């Protein structure tokens, strides 16, 4: 495999990682029946919180903690509105994105142009020397490795544990779950918060790993792409990897074309990830309809025992 192909594949993994975190998080929220369209806002606030913490402490891991905490805190607003107060989930999610965009841009103004000591690629001993896979997968930074662990962990939790069973039951048939003694509200809060934490970490990947800077609106729609990829992934963490790296691949290719000095205008190249996501969404919708792999049955339906 040519050096160029390997470089593009490695870049695809890097570019796909922030979306992968956010997609995994949204899978948890939606599996429990809560649609959260606030991913973009949570990613932005996470990106800022992680960046500021890294600048102040010099420790990017503290940045990751702060980003997760910030994303999680923001998601609890959504949980309060949608689980406890039974508000419209689309409206609440949009409110969260509007709020998170405004909040991060307001508080982050002093940090534009400030340098941060973020993560650096650290080759994994042994694995990094594998042919092809080594340079593609194991010459990455620690957050990418964290995402490798997260994918099977998310799959295991959802399909092989009692928690996962409860989550899926709450998302499919909350009445039945309730009758079995599952605390529907608690499960939904926990899953929305998981989504927030992962969106925050995905956001800060952009500000302390993918780049080491804060820019207003630096997520550039990746939160929305994550929401689309949840459908592509048919709510399955393993398929989320495919979607995220496909997105990353398109992104990496267009960046490489830019760097190679193509005559294609840069702004048209920058459109490709969005166009790609729409096309993917079309095919994913057709496939889920054909194979009857629908969304969780209770997605975006508030639940209460009294009605």
């Amino acid at each position, binding site marked *: 495999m040519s050096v160029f192909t390997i470089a593009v594949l490695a870049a695809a993994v890097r570019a796909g990682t922030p979306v992968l975190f956010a997609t995994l998080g949204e899978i948890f929220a939606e599996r429990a029946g809560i649609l959260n*369209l606030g991913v973009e806002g949570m990613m932005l606030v996470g990106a800022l919180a992680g960046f500021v913490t890294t600048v102040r402490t010099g420790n990017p891991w503290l940045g990751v903690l702060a980003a997760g905490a910030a994303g999680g805190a923001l998601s609890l607003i959504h949980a309060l509105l949608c689980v406890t107060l039974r508000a419209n989930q689309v409206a609440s999610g949009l409110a969260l994105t509007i*709020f998170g965009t*405004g909040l991060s841009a307001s508080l982050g103004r002093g940090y534009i142009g400030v340098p941060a000591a973020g993560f650096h690629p650290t080759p994994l001993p042994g694995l990094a020397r594998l042919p092809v896979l080594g340079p593609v997968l194991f010459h990455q930074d620690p957050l990418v490795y964290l995402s490798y662990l997260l994918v099977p962990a998310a799959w295991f939790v959802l399909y092989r544990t009692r928690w996962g069973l409860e989550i899926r039951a709450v998302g499919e048939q909350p009445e039945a779950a309730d009758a079995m003694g599952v*605390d529907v509200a608690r499960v939904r809060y926990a899953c929305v918060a998981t989504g927030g934490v992962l969106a925050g970490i995905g956001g800060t990947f952009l500000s302390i790993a993918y780049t080491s800077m804060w820019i207003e609106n630096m997520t550039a729609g990746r939160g929305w792409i994550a929401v689309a990829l949840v459908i592509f992934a048919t709510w399955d963490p393993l398929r989320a990897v495919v979607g995220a790296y496909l997105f990353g691949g398109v992104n990496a290719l267009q960046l490489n074309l830019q760097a190679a000095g193509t005559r294609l205008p840069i702004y048209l190249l920058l459109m490709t990830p969005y166009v790609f996501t729409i096309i993917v969404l079309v095919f994913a919708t057709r496939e889920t309809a054909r194979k009857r792999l629908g969304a969780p049955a209770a997605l975006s339906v508030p639940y209460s025992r009294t009605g």
Partner: protein
Amino acid sequence: MIRLRVERRALPSPWASAAAPVLALAAALLAGAVMLAIAGLNPLTAYVDLVSDPFGSVFGWTETIVKTIPLILTGLAVLLPARMRLWNIGAEGQLQCGAIAATWVAVWTPLGHSPVAIPALLLAGMAAGALWCLIPAILRAYLSVNETITTLLMNYIALLLVDYLIYGPWQDPAGRGFPLSAPFPPAAKLPLLIPGTRVHLGLVLALAAVAATAFVLNRTRWGLEIRIIGDNPRAARYAGISLVRNIVLVMGVAGALAGLAGASEVSAIAGRLERGISPGYGYTAILVAWLARLSPLAIVLVALLLGALFVGGDGLQISLGLPIAVVYMLQGLIFFFVLASETLATYRLTARGRSPGRSW
């Protein structure tokens, strides 16, 4: 452990229904004050500016009206599809496409210098906005593709299209390298309604659009179909109402309204295609439609209030150096508290200690 529990009120409390939006606004401003204080600013001075800039002078009032115009039009672009349970969160992109098409007519065709320049560029803007919205509409109508995500993603594409044009083929050679199109010829500038202000013909168009939307929704067969689909999609199907046709038509009209907003903004305010034709009117439009509870007439008042917030935000930018993003933070807070207040008007919130039964 105290758990909150929501119980439906026997009747929606009339007191709560009336007080809820007011309390929500007050709570949002209070929360905003806390945020401003955290950011190291004096919330009181900020809020004084926020109210006095839009309402404290004749100039302030006229500027508020200027911002109200695109908010009414994009608000309607969100409202119409929402009446049949479709989320158009792509009004921003549709607005940008309207601005692109209007610029094309004004700058790149002979029509720009002709007496029919204004109607031509407005119609072009409406057509472009409609076409842009029809892509997600057709995907939704025929392939069931989620329109919330696609309309939103189309915004990013539209904004990049503007960038492509103003950094590329449409860049004004006389613009010293700035990303701007050539200016609109005088014949293509939307006339002002009040000389000496920036209030333009768009106000008449926006109010006409409100009246037309209210009429169509409440007094025509088509409006009835839209309302039936919104109330009960299954009943609509049994009644033989075509969902596909209505999705395409309603989204097309919505896109046209947002496109009209873009055409009138670029022609009356900016006078050339550039970045920042809109500070995000198409996103605020979602809040406008929601606060108006999907009533076309209420949109005028809500758009005026949120237009004032933009004027106040501009003022804060000048007086305190605050970014316009503060406006979006406040809008988000208002949205949160309004959503909470709506539940609290129909439900009762009770706190109780650990109870034998589970509650949520």
